[in-house]
């Protein structure tokens, strides 16, 4: 398979302008003749849908949530990057581009990243215009902060609720179009499949979550903005319903899946408290500015933290990485925490936690300063754990947080299936092997507001579309495939719930494919996943009726796809025999624990093509070329 990125020729700074000029246009009066389906109402989906509606296309949009405003994007806390250079600290589009390529450990496509940096400034203008209440300075101008190890202050924020405010902005633009009747909004409808006719993606199959009805929806083009797959690890910082179904079903229909092994683990989350645990809550990384991370020096030291004397504590980050200490990069800090816990020195009831201690900072700065800086986080922590972090050190542990991999797309955000476009976290395009803080929100909105509205017009104008209706055999077939699958699940009448299978899968993924990976472990995961999947199809229990509001069936359908997808992820991790960004193969590291890339062998995107359940998919590559940023060892020293 030839993965043609369709990156325009010419100087990187002019590619996007040139491309916009060269793309075909659809005359305004003709736009309403085209219908576009968008799945997902997160930042990427809502912004794309609103923009399509404004342009005059007929649009239908879908979400499994009860309202478009509830998409997972709502939970983002920290902020959104842009190259405005308002603080006058020498930021620029070029610097944002450079930082993002380097942050992704040289595994992203230069031209896409440059475009992302270019449109970042328009995003901020757009959001302010919509009434997003970003933080401001006394002079009334926008405030910025530095985030995720950047040397410049380029992050815009709205308290600790940036994702909420940006999503509500996009949601309001979307609602305006729904009110204007250019957009039809379908809530509580979950996409089950895509439909391909004559080689073009021409619609989707959905399940109505209230009535259970399986329905067909036709279109001239389809966009998936369905988010990431972090819940493949069972526990993550993602919302409960986040799942891989939409992108995985597209993969099964021929779209190739790029870099599934690039998954990001966040070091500062609240640890697991027991088997009942349903999610892991992210605690802002900023806590590491003043907290000191430690565990007891001795195994099985069960004394309360305050009774463990200073000399019996191991401040392992300060010890191992004296120059960066508690501020060591995300991946290094995460792996170091795992190491001490695997060594039997972890804290918390499960042994999988480390202390984040503010005692020194409180002594040095006073309690009021700490309260001012982190008051709301301390409150959130106390609500969940029931301990006062001003008195007892916090406990933290890494958790699955974000997925850089996703469906492969070209420069126009189109997958390998003509007409199927992929936006936001669901695609693979801009973050390479590691995403920087505050860049996911930027990418979702860049794709939705400023890229896809142009590129989809080019696709529609360059192709001919046969008239299809929902009665077409391909739709009928996809509907009956979905119904068959559901009936099969209902008829198993086994003994285990979908959640039990999901938890089992998560345990394997976390243990062997989580923070540190090695050949033996990955091979073990490949042995362990198929039996879980086989048992699922023999021993699953789904209560209730298919034609009803059925939360067990909903979950079973999602878990079934995770059980197949997980293997693709492991294959990718195994074949990528190098470390890069968040993909850490223990075999390949520098003495200081940094990831050791192998540019000779792996300076490419790996995109996987489906070959049947349980069969090894075919690995295709898109070589990456770096003309404007020179390949170098990613070092934060």
């Amino acid at each position: 398979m030839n993965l043609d990125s369709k990156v325009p020729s010419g100087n990187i700074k002019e590619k996007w302008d040139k491309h916009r000029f060269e793309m075909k246009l659809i005359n305004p009066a003709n736009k309403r003749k085209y219908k576009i389906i968008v799945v997902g109402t997160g930042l990427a989906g809502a912004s794309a849908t609103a923009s399509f509606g404004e342009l005059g296309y007929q649009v239908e949009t879908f979400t499994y949530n009860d309202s478009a405003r509830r998409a997972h994007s709502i939970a983002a806390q920290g902020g959104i990057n842009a190259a405005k250079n308002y603080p006058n600290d020498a930021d620029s589009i070029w610097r944002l581009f450079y930082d993002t390529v380097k942050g992704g450990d040289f595994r992203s496509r230069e031209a896409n990243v440059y475009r992302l940096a270019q449109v970042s400034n328009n995003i901020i203008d757009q959001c302010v215009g919509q009434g997003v209440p970003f933080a401001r300075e006394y002079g009334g101008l926008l405030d910025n902060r530095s985030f995720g190890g950047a040397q410049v202050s380029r992050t815009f924020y709205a308290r600790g609720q940036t994702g909420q405010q940006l999503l509500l902005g996009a949601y309001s633009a979307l609602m305006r179009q729904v009110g204007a009747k250019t957009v039809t909004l379908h809530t509580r409808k979950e996409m089950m499949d895509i439909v391909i006719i004559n080689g073009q993606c021409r619609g989707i199959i959905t399940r109505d979550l209230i009535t259970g009805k399986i329905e067909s929806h036709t279109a001239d083009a389809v966009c998936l903005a369905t988010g990431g797959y972090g819940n493949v690890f069972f526990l993550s910082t993602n919302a409960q319903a986040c799942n891989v179904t939409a992108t995985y079903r597209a993969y099964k229909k021929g779209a190739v899946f790029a870099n599934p092994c690039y998954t990001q683990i966040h070091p500062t989350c609240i640890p697991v408290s027991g088997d009942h645990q349903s999610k892991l809550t992210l605690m802002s990384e900023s806590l590491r500015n003043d907290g000191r991370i430690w565990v007891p020096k001795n195994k099985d030291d069960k004394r309360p933290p305050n009774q463990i004397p200073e000399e019996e504590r191991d401040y392992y980050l300060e010890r191992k990485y004296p120059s960066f200490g508690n501020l060591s990069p995300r991946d290094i800090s995460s792996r170091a925490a795992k190491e001490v816990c695997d060594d039997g020195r972890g804290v918390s009831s499960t042994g999988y936690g480390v202390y984040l201690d503010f005692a020194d900072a409180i002594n040095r700065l006073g309690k009021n300063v700490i309260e001012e800086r982190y008051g709301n986080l301390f409150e959130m922590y106390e609500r969940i754990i029931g301990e006062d972090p001003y008195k007892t050190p916090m406990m933290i542990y890494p958790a699955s947080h974000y997925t850089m991999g996703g469906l492969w797309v070209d420069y126009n955000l189109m997958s390998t299936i003509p007409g199927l476009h992929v936006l936001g976290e669901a695609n693979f395009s801009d973050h390479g092997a590691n995403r920087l803080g505050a860049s996911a929100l930027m990418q979702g909105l860049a794709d939705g507001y400023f890229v896809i509205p142009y590129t989809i017009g080019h696709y529609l104008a360059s192709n001919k579309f046969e008239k299809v209706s929902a009665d077409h055999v391909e739709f009928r077939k996809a509907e009956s495939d979905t119904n068959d699958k559901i009936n099969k699940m209902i008829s198993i009448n086994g003994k285990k719930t979908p959640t039990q299978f999901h938890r089992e899968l998560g345990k394997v993924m976390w243990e062997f494919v989580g923070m540190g990976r090695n050949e033996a472990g990955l091979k073990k995961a490949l042995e362990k996943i198929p039996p879980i999947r086989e048992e699922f199809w023999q021993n699953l229990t789904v209560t209730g009726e298919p034609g009803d509001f059925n939360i067990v069936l909903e979950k079973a359908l999602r878990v079934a796809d995770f059980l197949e997808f997980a293997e693709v992820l492991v294959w990718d991790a195994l074949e990528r025999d190098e470390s890069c960004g968040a993909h850490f193969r223990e075999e390949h590291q520098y003495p200081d624990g940094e990831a050791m890339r192998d540019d000779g062998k792996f300076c490419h995107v790996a995109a996987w093509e489906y070959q049947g359940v349980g069969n090894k998919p075919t690995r295709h590559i898109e070589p990456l070329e770096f003309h404007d940023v020179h390949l170098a060892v990613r070092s934060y020293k």
Partner: protein
Amino acid sequence: MKLTLHIWRQKSARDKGKFEEHLVDDVSPDMSFLEMLDVLNESLIHQGKEPFAYDHDCREGICGACSLTINGTPHGPEAATTTCQLHMRKFKNGDSIFIEPFRARAFPIIKDLVVDRSAFDRIIQVGGFISVGTNQPQDANALPVSKLKAELAMDAAACIGCGACAAACPNGASMLFVAAKVSQFALLPQGQPERKKRVVAMVEQMEKEGFGGCTNFYECEAVCPKQVSVRFIAMMNRDFLGATLTKE
């Protein structure tokens, strides 16, 4: 902990519902309220019974999906806390807990504890936005906004659209929800051109949806998990009056 749960069971919108009693033991104080329900649901599935349907997603108090009335109070006993953030350590061994859906005339029940809150979306559709198309705005710093006003707009914008305000109100009014959106935009320069039109359209839609009128009980503010202030209702009332008087 051992608890006696009385949970609302209702097969569909057309059916009549009733409380069903379940005894749960082994409840850990570290569980969240929803995790406690998850554990019950898992055991119901094992017994071949249908679990209770309830809405939830983010489980960190920001998406606004979770919506239980616990012992008569939307989101339960702890102030400024959504159901998903409520933890079992706030209850005592032996407690009886009544769990119902959010109840309001404009929120019909779909199943068990799940209600239809799409009325809120329709209120936003008629005016809960600033009419600015993609790529139309000027530079973000072209219009300064005083820090005070921006902060106040953010206080209003913090609303998560959960509907607890309407569920708590004896009149089933959704004034706090509507006022939060109206005020956010009324406080910002970008919101001025449509200020009057917006408030009138949103209030009219609110009435059409079957939400009741405000008679100053202030139950809404008391249960709001984001502590949105009733001062915004006063602000909206002023705007509404002004808009209807000038008939713009």
